[in-house]
C-alpha cells in the first residue's frame, strides 16, 4: 500500500506554515514547546474563531493550508490521529466542573472536547459527507490514521484523503505528566537536546495535515511507500529485526536509504535504541532528527513525515536537523524511525515519486 503526498499544512513550534523549511529555527529554554501561530483570521472567520480553542484553530488551519497547498477542494475522506485530543476544552470543562461543584456549566467546551472535534469541524467546513474517523492510541494515533488512508486508497474507496495528526500542549498537561518523569528536570536549550544525556525530554505540540492521493502529479512531494508499527518490543534486537523485515518487504536494503530520520528526544533512558539501529544497520547512512524542533508528543511522527516529504521534494537536508554523516547525492529514500516512550514504535518509508 502506498500513496503520493500531494499537499501539506503544518503548524508547529517552528515557522512551518508558510513554505519555510527550517532555514531559521527557534530555540526554546522552557522544556515546554508551543506552536508559532499563523494569523488565524486569514483562514477562519473571526466569529467562528472566537469559540475555537487553540488546538481547534491549529487543526482546522493546518487542514486548510493543506487543501490550498494540494489545490484540492474536496477530499474523499477526512481522518485524524491525536493522543490527547482537545486538551484545552477538556481542561476547561473539567476545571469548571470541579471548581463549581458540577454547577453553572456551559456546553461549548464539552462539545469541543471530544477527540473527533477537528475531523468533524473540517467535514462541516467542507461539507464533506464521506468517510471520517479519528484514532486515539498514543504513539500509534497518527500511524493508524495513515494506515486507514492507505487502505481506503488501496480499496479504491478514496483517491484523495485528508489525513492529519495533532496534539496540544498545556501547562497543566506538562505539570501532570512531569510527575511521571517524562520531562527534563533541568532547563534545556531545545537545540542542544541531544547533548544533555539526562533522563526526560521536552514537551511539544503540533498540527499537521497531508493530502494523500493515488494520482501522479508533478506537484506531488513524495511517495509514502511503507508504514509499519511495533508494540512494546522486548529488546533492541527485536526492533532491528523489525526494521530489516520492513525494508525487505519494500524491496530495499539499508544501503538504499539515503537518510534515516530518528525520533531521538534526548531522553538518556530511551534513546539508546536509535543509536543501536544506527550502529548496526545505518552506520554508513546520513542521519537526521527532529524532536529538538517540535518537542515530543504522541503525534510527533507527523512532523517527521512533513520534514521527510519536504526534504525529498526540495532535495535538501537543512543543517539544523543533521545528525552525523551529511547526505551525499540524491535523496531518493528516507526512513523514519520513531518511538513514543519505548512503547509505540513506528517506521515510515518516504521515497521520491
Amino acid at each position: 500500500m502506498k500513496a503520493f503526498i500531494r499537499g501539506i499544512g503544518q503548524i508547529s513550534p517552528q515557522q512551518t506554515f508558510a513554505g519555510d523549511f527550517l532555514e531559521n529555527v527557534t530555540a526554546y529554554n522552557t522544556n515546554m514547546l508551543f506552536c508559532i501561530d499563523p494569523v488565524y483570521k486569514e483562514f477562519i472567520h473571526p466569529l467562528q474563531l472566537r469559540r475555537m480553542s487553540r488546538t481547534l484553530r491549529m487543526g482546522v488551519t493546518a487542514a486548510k493550508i493543506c487543501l490550498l497547498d494540494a489545490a484540492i477542494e474536496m477530499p474523499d475522506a477526512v481522518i485524524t490521529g491525536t493522543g490527547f485530543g482537545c486538551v484545552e476544552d477538556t481542561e476547561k470543562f473539567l476545571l469548571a466542573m470541579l471548581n463549581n461543584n458540577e454547577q453553572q456549566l456551559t456546553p461549548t467546551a464539552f462539545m469541543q472536547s471530544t477527540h473527533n472535534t477537528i475531523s468533524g469541524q473540517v467535514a462541516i467546513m467542507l461539507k464533506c459527507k464521506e468517510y471520517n474517523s479519528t484514532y486515539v492510541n498514543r504513539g500509534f494515533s497518527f500511524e493508524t490514521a495513515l494506515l486507514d488512508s492507505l487502505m481506503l486508497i488501496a480499496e479504491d474507496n478514496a483517491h484523495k484523503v485528508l489525513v492529519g495528526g495533532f496534539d496540544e500542549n498545556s501547562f497543566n498537561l506538562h505539570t501532570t505528566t512531569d510527575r511521571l518523569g517524562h520531562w527534563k528536570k533541568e532547563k534545556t536549550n531545545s537545540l542542544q537536546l541531544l547533548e544533555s544525556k539526562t533522563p526526560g525530554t521536552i514537551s511539544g505540540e503540533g498540527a499537521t495535515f497531508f493530502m494523500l492521493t493515488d494520482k501522479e502529479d508533478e506537484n506531488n512531494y513524495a511517495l509514502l511507500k511503507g508504514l509499519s508499527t511495533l508494540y512494546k518490543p522486548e529488546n533492541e534486537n527485536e526492533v532491528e529485526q523489525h526494521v530489516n523485515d520492513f525494508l525487505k518487504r519494500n524491496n530495499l536494503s539499508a544501503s538504499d536509504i539515503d537518510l534515516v530520520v530518528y525520533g531521538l528526544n534526548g531522553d538518556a533512558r530511551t534513546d539508546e535504541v536509535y543509536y543501536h539501529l544506527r550502529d548496526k544497520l545505518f552506520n554508513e547512512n546520513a542521519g537526521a532528527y527532529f524532536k529538538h524542533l517540535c518537542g515530543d508528543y504522541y503525534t510527533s511522527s507527523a512532523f517527521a513525515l512533513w520534514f521527510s516529504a519536504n526534504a525529498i521534494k526540495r532535495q535538501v537536508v537543512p543543517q539544523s536537523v543533521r545528525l552525523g554523516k551529511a547526505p551525499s547525492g540524491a535523496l531518493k529514500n528516507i526512513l523514519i524511525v520513531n518511538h513514543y516512550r519505548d512503547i509505540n514504535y513506528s517506521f515510515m518509508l518516504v521515497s521520491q515519486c
Partner: protein
Amino acid sequence: MSERIAITGLGIISAIGDNVHQNLASLRAKRSGIGQIKYLETIHKGILPIAEVKHSDDELLILLGVSENTGYTRTALLGMIAAKEAFADSGAKKGDGIRTAMISATTVGGMGSTEKFYLDYINPEKTGDFVKYIDSHDCGDSAEKIADNLGIKDFITSINTACSSSANALMLGARLIKHGIVDRVVAGGVDGLTKFTINGFNTLMILDKEYCKPFDKNRTGLTLGEGSGFVVLESLEVAQKAGKKIYCELSGYANTCDAYHQTASSPEGTGAFLSMSSALALSGLEIEDIDYVNVHGTATQINDLSEGNAMIKFFGNKVPKFSSTKGYTGHTLAAAGGIEAVFSALTIYNNTIFPNLNFKDKMDEFDLIPVTDLIENAGVKNVLSNSFGFGGNNTSLIFSKV
C-alpha cells in the same frame, strides 16, 4: 478483497449483566439496567437515572481476577472483562501464534480517575497513591491494557468518533483482515460512566429525568450508560475450515459524515441515510433482505427524528422491524456500537428480536413503531445496526446469518 468476515466470539459487560449469558437473559426478560445512581459520586445522584454496571471498581478487579490496582481505570477494567470473554469464547489462546489485532474505542478513556484526582495532579505539592492513574488518562491506555492482558501485540489502536466509535472498530477490524494485515481482530469499545460525561450531556439538556423512551412521542432525552462490548473477527473461510462456532457474518459496513453540526444530527438524517445505503451496497444484499434494524435510537428529540427520517428515506414504506436497546443499557457512548454488535449477533444466532423498552406513543412526524415485545423464531437473517456520534460521525454495520 472479497474475503468474508465471521464473528466467532462475543464478550460484554453492561448494566444488564456481567457476561453474554446474563445480558441475554435480561434482554429476554425485558429487564432494564437503568436505575438511580449508586456508584458514581455526583450531585446528580437521586435526580438523573443512569445505567451503571452493578459493581464497584474493586468488585470489577475481583471479577477480572486481578489482585492489585496498579492504575486500572473503570474504563480499562470494563474493557478487559468484555474483551477477555470474547477472546476465550472464540477459542483463542494467549500466544497461539495467530496474528491478532486489538481495536478498542473509547470517548472518556481514564477520565473517571482523572476527575477524582485532577486538582491533585496539577498541584506538584501533592503526593500520593493517585499518581498511578496519571498515565491512564488518555484513550489509548485501556486498549493497551486489554491487549497486554490478552497477550496481543501485532496491531493495537483506539478509535474515538464519539458514539459511533466501536462500530468503526469493527469496520477497521474487518478491513485489516481483508488487507491481510492480521488474521484475527478483537474489536469493540468501552466507556465507564464519569461526572465529566453526565455533566457534559446535562449542559446539552438532552438527559431524560425518567428512563429513556426511544422513538416515543414524549421522549425527552437519553439515559447514559456504561459498559463494554467486544467481538472476535476472523476470516469466514478460515473459521469454517477450523469448525469454529460462527455467530454470524459482518457482511456490510460504512462510515459517512453528516457534516451538519458538531453535536446534532441533520433533521433529514443525511449522513445516516448514506451510511445505511453504503453498508447495504457493500453487503451485496437487497434492501428487502434486511429483517431487523438495531437502531441508534438514543431517545433524544433530534436523533430519533433524524434516524426515523433516514430509515423512511432508505426503506420507503417498508421499514423493517426495529428496536433500540438503549432502554436496557442506557447510551453507552463509545461502547454502544460494540454492545449492539453483540446484541445483533445474538439476535441472529438465537433468531430472536429484543424489544424496545418504555415505548408508548408513536411520534407525530411518522408512523414508525418499534418492536415492543420479545419475538422468538423471528426469521432474522440480516440485521442492520446503526451508530451515530458527535462530529456527525455515522456508521452502519450489517450482520448476516451464515
